[in-house]
């Protein structure tokens, strides 16, 4: 087997894991740098907003990113530590387009031994840039001196403190001094260590404080003149400078845990804090001046500023503008106002949001409009940032106006009268008829151009040089003045034959009558016949498009012929044949186009069966190379160029599956359009419809604008609670979504913590705990404690409105969802797999499989099956239901009594988490034993294990690529492919 798989990223990472501000690209630029997994994005902060400068990719996952400025430097340097312990110092060199990011120093600081810390990697930089400190392994502190920037080498220092929550360098110390929070069985304590850079040792402990807040987790070092540090805990905020301390216990901070902070003032008087529930606080150090001129912190004030996305990192930019980097929701650029909003009491106004898809917990691919344009619906975000995202590839057309008109054979926009910029007239051609529409603002009315012949079909209409309009019918070519609308000149073919095919640009006309080809040029009030040639066969299609935008005259023309099915390149004006290319087959070419994408010339030739050949074209010699074929549709295709907003050339292929052809990275890309059928199109730049397209099919004509090309289109449906699983049900035109919301125990009982999709639904139902004998009694909760409530939401596929919400039992976790048709039952059911979670058990011992029917916008429970474990995955398998329950894979039949009956099981897993099926084959993904391939033996009615991967991979997803190839995702962020061994 020589097939290889490769992976292409369709969308860059969007979750912000780290952000910093500083003067990176120049001493005066204020830069914002975002780390998104393995990408770094560099922005410059301008009064208009953030302007992207550069994006770079590194080979590694950014863990810590920090700015520092050595005394000798005028701008900041960027320090990065990756998850595999690679360190680097980056520097920006050059400006504008020449901006380059250079690695100033790098090195790996990994140890062969050592236990990686549970509380994660900590990297800190001395404020005076003397050293970098790292805590990677338990009990070891690493020091990288910054004096000489060669290879970054770390020296380890043993630390007494093992479990360290957070660490920072203190400001204003003669030698680098760290402050840390560590905890032992007595509680949490803070301690400082002075480091001797010469001896690479902790030399003394200047001060310490035992038994601080039991959940203290964040240290904020305070710069001069105050010095010292702020320690943020669950309940208290403490300022300590070694001699004095101030502690406050504001009740507002108690609800959640602070996760990040940003310093507002350089003197360290104000800080912003973000907590895990997405609230933003301002922390103010009130100070007084002592008699000896010493500034001393007197009090701490905490104020709630408002609600933002759940922050992962915060950075203060300038003038009250703050960037909130989020991993669980959309990142935001916010502005802090002086006065609170009267309604919401919030000091925050959101300036810009940055769409973030992460974390995607589940997704479905659906084709809602049945146009072959699949969409991805993902369960994105978590907690209050939970949302459904509809991701569409390809190109969408927004319809602005439609007119019912049958049988359009051609459309052209015209600029009549004084109009120079906007098209104000649209010519429509029908069989035996040509009609003219005038576009006056929004209004479309029928009008007449005197010089036009309106009782026959037009082959071409268009503005040409010298304020003239050209109309070509089967009889003649007519030149009409744009001002007087009177006929100026008419050219008729010398023979009596009718014109069959034409092609035109502003100056040149090619007309074919059978196999006779005439080359005409348009002058002031005259059409000159410049050349005539007789081709071997009748002409099927023609093109004289301009290849270079600067020129007026094309030097070559392309012709497609009947009978021998060939494409020929002719030289203009002589009409000498430069080259011919036989296309092969028996389908005649229907449309030919010479065009230029990204500086490369192409010849596109569409055939009558919807396929298209394309070649690279040498415009001097006419030589065609790199012949390729694509299938665009099943009907004859018409190719038209149109300009998009970015001024690049694009080609619209009109057929039963309309396609936009454009170039990306010097490759042609064929992108579907969300329309059913397009027979003809033209670009239209009218006053009411700027940068639009006019499109027609058999019955209607549409004016619309086209989406920006080359982008995934993402639509967000906020839920306000964590979505976990999603399934699509075609029969009811709905999505089933499993969500989790947090309820808080209050004096009156359980109350939702906030309004979300499940609480706002009008139709609700719930599973009562008493109905089920295996039910675990809900644990008694203290007031203020939170508990997870799982729901099944049924959501409309178009409006994404919640039709129904079913709430599951307390302490019942919904883990899997499938929409399936079972057995001979014609109805489609939503089936939910759950687990009853008892926190004391290592593994759930009970669960349910519940079958729901959604009919007439009501959800009813049809059946339920008690199972002995957690149902991690459910799939439909040949009309039966396949479930992964703890370590087993079980197959259930749907009986005529509408109940699930166990048919057979397979046992050879630790925890079976994922299932995929294809035919009789089942792929099982295990928690820690990679993948297993099972075959269902219909005759025996059991499973046979036919293949297994023996590597100890901890799986996060599995998929069947084909009968022999299987894709797996494991939890160290790798994808791997297994092949069946023969």
């Amino acid at each position: 087997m020589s097939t290889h798989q490769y992976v292409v990223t369709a969308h860059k990472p969007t979750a912000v894991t780290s952000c910093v501000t500083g003067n990176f690209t120049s001493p005066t630029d204020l830069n914002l740098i975002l780390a998104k997994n393995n990408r770094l994005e560099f922005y410059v902060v301008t009064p208009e907003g953030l302007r992207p400068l550069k994006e770079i990719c590194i080979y590694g996952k950014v863990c810590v990113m920090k700015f520092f400025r050595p005394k000798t430097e005028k701008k900041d340097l960027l320090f990065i530590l990756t998850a595999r312990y690679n360190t680097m110092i980056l520097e920006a060199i050059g400006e504008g387009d020449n901006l380059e990011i250079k690695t100033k120093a790098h090195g790996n600081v990994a140890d062969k031994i050592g236990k990686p810390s549970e509380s994660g990697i900590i990297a800190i930089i001395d404020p005076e840039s003397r050293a970098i400190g790292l805590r990677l392994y338990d009990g070891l502190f690493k020091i990288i001196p910054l004096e000489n920037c060669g290879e970054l080498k770390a020296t380890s220092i043993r630390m007494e403190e093992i479990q360290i929550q957070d660490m920072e360098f203190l400001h204003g110390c003669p030698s680098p001094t760290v402050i840390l929070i560590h905890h032992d069985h007595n509680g949490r304590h803070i301690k400082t260590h002075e480091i001797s850079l010469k001896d690479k040792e902790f030399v003394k402990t200047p001060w310490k404080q035992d038994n601080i807040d039991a959940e203290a987790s964040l240290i904020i070092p305070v710069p001069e003149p105050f010095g010292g540090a702020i320690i943020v805990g669950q309940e208290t905020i403490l300022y300590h400078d070694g001699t004095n301390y101030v502690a406050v216990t504001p009740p507002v901070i108690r609800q959640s845990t602070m996760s990040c902070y940003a310093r507002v003032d350089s003197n360290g008087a104000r800080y912003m804090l973000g907590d895990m529930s997405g609230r933003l606080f301002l922390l103010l150090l009130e100070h007084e001046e002592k008699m000896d001129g010493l500034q001393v912190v007197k009090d701490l004030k905490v104020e709630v500023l408002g609600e933002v996305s759940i922050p992962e990192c915060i950075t203060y930019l300038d003038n009250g503008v703050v960037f909130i980097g989020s991993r669980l929701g959309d990142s935001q650029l916010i502005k802090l106002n002086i006065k609170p909003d009267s309604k919401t009491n919030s000091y925050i106004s959101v300036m810009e949001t940055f769409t973030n898809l992460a974390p995607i917990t589940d997704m479905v691919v659906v084709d809602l409009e049945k146009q072959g344009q699949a969409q991805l619906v993902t369960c994105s975000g978590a907690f209050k940032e939970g949302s459904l995202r509809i991701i569409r590839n390809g190109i969408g057309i927004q319809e602005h106006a439609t007119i019912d008109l049958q049988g359009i054979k051609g459309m052209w926009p015209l600029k009549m009268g004084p109009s120079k910029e906007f098209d104000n007239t649209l010519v429509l051609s029908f069989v035996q008829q040509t009609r003219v529409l005038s576009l006056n603002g929004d209004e479309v009315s029928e009008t007449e151009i005197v010089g036009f012949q309106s009782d026959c079909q037009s082959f071409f209409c268009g503005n040409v040089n010298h304020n003239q309009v050209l109309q070509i019918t089967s009889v003649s070519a007519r030149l009409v003045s744009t001002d007087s609308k009177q006929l100026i000149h008419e050219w008729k073919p010398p023979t009596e034959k009718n014109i069959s095919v034409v092609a035109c640009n502003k100056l040149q006309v090619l007309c074919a009558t059978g196999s006779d080809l005439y080359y005409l040029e348009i002058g002031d009030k005259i059409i000159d016949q410049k050349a005539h040639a007789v081709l071997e066969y009748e002409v099927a299609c023609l093109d004289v498009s301009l290849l270079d935008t600067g020129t007026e005259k094309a030097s070559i023309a392309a012709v497609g012929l009947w009978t021998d099915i060939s494409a020929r390149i002719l030289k203009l004006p002589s009409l000498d044949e430069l080259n011919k290319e036989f296309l092969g087959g028996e389908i005649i070419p229907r449309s030919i186009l010479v065009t230029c994408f990204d500086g490369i010339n192409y010849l596109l030739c569409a055939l009558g069966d919807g396929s298209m050949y394309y070649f690279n074209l040498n415009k001097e010699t006419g030589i065609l190379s790199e012949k390729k074929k694509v299938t665009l549709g099943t009907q004859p295709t018409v190719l038209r160029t149109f300009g998009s907003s970015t001024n690049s050339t694009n080609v619209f292929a009109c057929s039963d599956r309309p396609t936009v052809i454009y170039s990306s990275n010097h490759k042609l890309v064929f992108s579907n359009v969300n329309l059913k059928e397009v027979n003809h199109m033209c670009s239209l730049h009218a006053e009411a419809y700027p940068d639009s397209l006019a499109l027609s099919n058999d019955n209607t004509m549409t004016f619309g604008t086209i989406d920006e090309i080359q982008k995934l289109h993402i639509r967000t449906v906020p839920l306000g609670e964590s979505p976990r699983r999603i399934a699509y049900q075609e029969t009811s035109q709905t999505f089933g979504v499993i969500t989790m919301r947090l309820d808080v125990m209050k004096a009156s009982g359980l109350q939702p913590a906030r309004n979300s999709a499940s609480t706002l639904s009008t139709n609700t139902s719930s599973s009562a705990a008493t109905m089920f004998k295996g039910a675990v009694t809900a644990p008694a909760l203290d007031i203020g404690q939170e508990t997870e409530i799982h729901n099944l939401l049924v959501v409309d596929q178009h409006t994404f409105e919640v039709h129904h919400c079913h709430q599951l039992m307390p302490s019942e976790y919904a883990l899997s969802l499938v929409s399936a048709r079972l057995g001979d039952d014609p109805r489609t059911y939503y089936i939910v797999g759950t687990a009853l979670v008892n926190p004391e058990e290592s593994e759930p011992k009970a669960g349910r499989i519940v079958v729901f029917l959604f009919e007439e916008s009501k959800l009813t429970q049809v059946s339920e099956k008690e199972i002995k474990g957690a149902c991690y995955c459910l799939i439909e398998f040949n009309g039966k239901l396949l479930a992964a329950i703890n370590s087993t894979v079980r197959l259930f039949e749907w009986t005529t009594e509408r109940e699930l009956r166990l048919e057979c099981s397979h046992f050879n897993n630790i925890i079976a988490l994922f299932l995929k099926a294809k035919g009789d084959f089942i792929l099982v993904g295990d928690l820690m034993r990679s993948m297993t391939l099972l075959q269902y033996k219909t005759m025996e009615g059991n499973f046979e294990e036919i293949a297994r991967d023996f590597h100890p991979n901890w799986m996060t997803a599995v998929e069947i690529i084909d009968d022999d190839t299987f894709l797996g995702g494991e939890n160290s962020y790798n994808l791997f492919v297994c092949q069946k061994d023969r």
Partner: protein
Amino acid sequence: MIRDLHDQGLGLMSPGRLRRVASDRLAVKLRLSRQPGSFATTEGLSSASTSTGSAADLSWLRPRRRQSEFMTCRNLILKFYLHSSTVIGLHQQFATLLFFRAFELFHECVCCVQWYPGSVKIITSSGKDGSLRMWDVCKRVVCCEVKPVRENRLTQHHQSPASKIPLVAVASPSAGIPILDLRFGKSPMRLKNTLGPVTYVQWSPTDEHTIASAAESVVLLWDVRVPSKPLLRMDMSNSRTPATTSTSHMGLVNCLEFSLDGRTLISYGTDNAIRMWDTQSGVLSDVNCGSVDNYVRVSVRMALNRGRRMFVPSRHHIRVFDLDTGERVHNLKGHMSDVYCVRYNPHFEMLHSGGRDRNIINWTMQNYKKTGSIGLEVRGRPGGT
């Protein structure tokens, strides 16, 4: 577990932490692997010798994501191979690929084997004939043989996993611990004043200088740079000034193990006690594991997983303890006689054990019922953990 999996999906829990948590939680699911070939016996092999052929020690290694294992019995060293066979159509099984049939050539009785850290080709072994040998696994020959002590017995040896220099510490009935440098086959130093015949030596997994030794009932912690006197003497009464007669256990200490972070030293003695010591201060922690039957007079081997679980051989059982609380969470029954050695394999989350009943048993979390499988071939190497 469900919560942890969700948290991992949201990026709130690191994969490493999930592995540790899952390993701890699922340790109670460990059971005798019912897969064919998942347990091996030495009965047929040892018939060549006159001995009983009990499995005295195990050492496992993972070369190129597969894994093999060494086991000793009376006078043989056996290499087992936990492999995926495409030919036989069986599951992960032990297959004897090669064994060292040494007879007179080798030790009279092999006590201890260890894979050379970082190499897939070399193992070290020690035995009752008083010699420490280095073997080339491919050629099955002795590359080096040292007799570090004058007496004709070695109880146990251990090579430092943290040190860049191949240093091996040897336990023997003579007082004093020779530290051998395998590059020269010489003993550059000797830890003195061990307070009696040494039964067990163990290097710290994180600190290249720290080594623990057990002599009779006294556990000592050494810094190899100071061979003349031990750094700490573990005292079970936890007094500040240990008396010269104070001991760590009431009986013979026959097993030592460091926790993965090197912060805790665990000792196990024939007084049926498991004690945990802080390696910084030498203080005995108050974790009480209760009474664990241990009457074997030879050194045994306990195992730790990457999380908080400890696997201790006790007669013909293997007891599973929680390191934090000392609570016994599970008991593995399967051996028919005394268990001598337990090794945890964190890559497969499996436990291997060997004992006097000549069996090596594989303990797995896998729920297994039926056979018949062929392997999958992996194309392209995943980046690993």
